[in-house]
């Protein structure tokens, strides 16, 4: 990745590191695993935005940095490796912004993009439902035409951050077709609109990020249809390349590795500990290179869906393996009640989040299907 070694990117990386050490001193950046899921800190998000590190890839005319994906990757990988609390703006920056940029009306772009880049406008993803998990095309939330807009009815499930964000992008059925992939549309829904009701679903840790997101006849004006009516499926699948390949697909548990190295550095590490630690480093290195390859492809506007699926399966499996391997390197009883930031507490947090890594963003089993289909197709053509 020669582009990543350019003087500008190295300088940017240093700048982020300086910022992070200030924030560490301030007590905001605490090396927490999975901080992009549960590290909700709007003031921190705004401080990032002030430095131009939210909406970096957006064009300048919409308040962005006009910097492309690689610059964004440099910043977010630094943030994730440091376990910084980035979940407030995460979905807005990663997903909603490129979606609105690609499919949104001029009015939507002017209204949302600068606000996202200022760290003032946070988004949720309203895709999954009770009956629509892996089989997303079976969503039952409906949007009916009413005067001047649409009325949405249904219940989204697993909607992260719906209780504290500003908007959600909701996938809903706008018409019936033989092919279920037709007749789906996306809407930008104000999470404070009348008819929206958010009900918590607690994680197995007791943390609250998930919700039922009920839409009881929520009226959405015409201007909040995102993209074209009926194009929802293509839009959603287009988003997924952004969602699947980034550093959050292999770095979620990296802060735990830093913690174990901290523990080991006061002691004389055994040969076995060195080898196991080194093997994790090798795999992290390799997955990172693949992930950077996807960022470079997205930067150049090349399709990267399959590569993204590949990165996500490898990377998220590694996130889980890292936890179990770290436990083998330095055995300790994971303890969620231990002092925050100590090794047993971080181990507990990373461990209790392991089920999520290979499920969110499309399960790994579904991704593997995408990978084999594409390779078989290529093989048939050659």
């Amino acid at each position, binding site marked *: 990745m020669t582009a990543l070694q350019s003087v500008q990117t190295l300088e940017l990386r240093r700048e982020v590191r300086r910022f992070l050490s200030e924030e560490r001193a301030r007590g905001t950046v605490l090396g927490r695993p999975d901080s992009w899921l549960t590290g909700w800190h709007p003031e921190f998000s705004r401080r990032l935005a002030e430095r131009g590190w939210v909406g970096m890839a957006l064009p300048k005319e919409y308040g962005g940095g006009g910097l492309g994906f690689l610059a964004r990757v440099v910043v977010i990988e630094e943030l994730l490796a440091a376990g910084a609390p980035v979940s407030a703006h995460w979905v807005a920056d990663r997903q909603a912004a490129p979606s609105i940029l690609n499919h949104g009306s001029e009015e939507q772009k002017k209204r949302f993009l600068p606000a996202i880049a200022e760290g003032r406008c946070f988004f949720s993803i309203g895709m999954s439902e009770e009956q629509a998990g892996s089989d997303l095309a079976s969503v039952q939330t409906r949007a009916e035409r009413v005067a001047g807009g649409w009325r949405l009815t249904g219940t989204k499930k697993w909607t992260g951050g719906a209780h504290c964000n500003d908007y959600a992008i909701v996938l809903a059925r706008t018409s019936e077709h033989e092919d279920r992939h037709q007749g789906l549309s996306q809407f930008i829904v104000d999470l404070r609109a009348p008819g929206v009701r958010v009900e918590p679903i607690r994680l197995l840790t007791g943390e609250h990020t998930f919700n039922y997101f009920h839409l009881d006849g929520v009226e959405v004006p015409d201007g909040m249809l995102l993209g074209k009516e009926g194009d929802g499926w293509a839009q959603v699948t287009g988003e997924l390349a952004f969602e699947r390949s980034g550093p959050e697909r292999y770095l979620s548990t990296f802060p735990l590795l830093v913690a174990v190295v901290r523990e080991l550095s006061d002691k004389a590490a055994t040969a076995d500990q060195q080898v196991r630690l080194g093997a994790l480093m*090798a795999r992290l290195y390799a997955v990172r290179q693949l992930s950077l390859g996807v960022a470079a492809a997205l930067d150049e506007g090349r399709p990267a869906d399959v590569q993204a699926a590949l990165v996500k399966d490898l990377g998220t499996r590694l996130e889980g393996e890292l936890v179990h391997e770290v436990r083998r390197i330095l055995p300790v009883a994971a303890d969620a009640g231990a002092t925050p930031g100590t090794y047993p507490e971080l181990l507990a947090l990373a461990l209790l989040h392991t089920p999520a890594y290979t499920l969110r963003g499309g399960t790994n089993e579904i991704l593997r299907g995408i990978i084999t289909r594409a390779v078989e197709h290529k093989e048939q053509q050659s």
Partner: protein
Amino acid sequence: MSIPQQLARVRTAGCTAGTGSAAGSAPLTEDTFVARPLAERAELALREGPLTYCLATGLVIRWAHPAVFHVGPAGTMGDDAALRVCGTLPRVPGARGATVLVAAQGPGGPVLFPVDPARTSVETGANLAGEPRDTLHLSDYQVPAELARPVTPELLSEFELRAALSRAALMAGAAQRCVQLTVAHTATRIQFGRPLGHFQAVKQEEARLIEESALVGAAVEAAGEALERLGAEARFEVAAAKAQASASVAEIARIAHQLHGAIGFTELSELRLATTRLWSWRDEDGDEAYWSARLGRAALTQRPEQLWSLLTGAN
């Protein structure tokens, strides 16, 4: 040709190795990517013919003409640079038909010198893929002064990195071959009235194979760029690439064979040409434990906050 370009060729050689395709001959890689560039760097004028290499440990090397009145920090000094060598060069690739470029610790520091197998006792052998791996026994082998080159530790280190990375690139090629053969097999082999690739269980395993192979390829490619840019300083990147290439072998070979069924276990299929090489190459030029231990030590000798800098290669 740049290092990444050369490595792309090495990878192709690894993909076609053993298939009779012209590009696929491993000793060529030992010559072109490792031994020859380093001999040239050290300005060693070697006689014509193919080269191979050995990074030797445990040799007894002494001055051929010691100056007994001249005792320095490294023991007696030589009257000239000529050396006498005793010991074993184990499992050298293709040594029976090539000059062996040896790198070792000499009496006054690292040295590079050629060994002519005809003047040694050669014990022929082979790796699991049947590639020649010959052990040379040197008993008082004489190296004339003009062929013994004291070299810098950096050159020695680059020698080792080139050896490991070219091996990893060969492995990336062989892994790619496993993918090609497996995808072709699952697309054409019919069971239960359908191609194997139609079944979920097969898809799931095949995807893991594709991923593991891509992982090795990405690590090798990135390490090649690092070696081009940093030379002997690309220690971390090359170690990661070889550690990962070796570590991925078990999974790659397991899945490729499992999805081939019985035929892959026989001479009726070409799969063995790739998998037996992978099983051998993972041990050659340092196995995953050797390179992982280096990475682990590197991680533990700096402050924990530096772990990420080590991975990104940016300070």
